């Protein structure tokens, strides 16, 4: 039996397009902020994980590549990976790295540093990416943020693909910082509600 398809079951196309656009013009990376703010707003306002449960295109992409196309061993993730220590630890690490990225953007804004036209993969490897930079209509920090943000998105995609192949298709969802954070927000909202 096949469950009915909804319009939002096709949002993976947007996620894929986003990743591809980053190879052509890095400034498109700014659009990725939507994947940050939409889940946060839904969880804060609605107290639900509707973003994960319905709309997240990245999760859909992993279930298509890993599930439908079969590029996954379909094994359970190791126990430590779903432990709260790892999930919360990864969330903290991810945000620490995010702030480093914002700081670098600030340095370029303050003209203390020159724009670096590289994408940093896995917070370590600097990939030259100047082909996707055609100058910026705005100031250089706008481009620096785009490179930084795209690095975050590409890194999480690579990690997600690796765990997709090793474990179940959507293993990334076990330790995805957005997923962990929205679940925490929902938990917190619920505690405050039940105390009233």
């Amino acid at each position, binding site marked *: *039996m096949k*469950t009915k398809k909804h319009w939002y079951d096709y949002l993976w196309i947007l996620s894929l397009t986003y990743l591809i656009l980053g190879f052509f013009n890095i400034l498109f990376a700014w659009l990725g902020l939507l994947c940050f703010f939409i889940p946060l707003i839904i*969880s804060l306002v609605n*107290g*639900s*994980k*509707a973003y*994960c*449960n*319905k709309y997240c295109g990245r*999760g859909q992409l992993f*279930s298509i590549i890993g*599930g439908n196309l079969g590029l996954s061993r*379909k094994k*359970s*993730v190791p126990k430590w990976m*779903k432990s709260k220590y790892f*999930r919360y630890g990864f969330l903290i690490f991810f945000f620490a790295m995010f702030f480093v990225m914002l700081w670098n953007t600030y340095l370029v804004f303050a003209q203390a540093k020159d724009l670096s036209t590289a994408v940093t993969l896995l917070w370590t490897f600097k990939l030259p990416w100047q082909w996707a930079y055609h100058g910026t209509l705005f100031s250089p920090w706008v481009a620096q943020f785009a490179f930084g943000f795209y690095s975050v998105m590409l890194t999480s995609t690579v990690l997600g693909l690796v765990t997709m192949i090793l*474990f*179940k*298709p*959507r*293993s*990334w*969802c*076990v330790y995805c910082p957005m*997923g*962990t954070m*929205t*679940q925490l*927000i*929902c*938990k917190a*909202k*619920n505690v405050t509600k039940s105390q009233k």
Partner: protein
Amino acid sequence: MIRKKAKVGTDECVACGCCVKVCPRNAISIFKGIYAEVDKNLCVGCGKCAKECPASVIILEEAV
């Protein structure tokens, strides 16, 4: 006849909703964005959710 039903390990559930998407009976919902909940009256014990769950926290249990 022994009938099995899905049971969620709510403590380790990440509330991703993968199970909801595959359940042919619409027996699962995500309780307030915190964990998945199975409606035992609807569940037919097919095990699709358990297979899909990325955190592998669903088990099939004999319903009493």
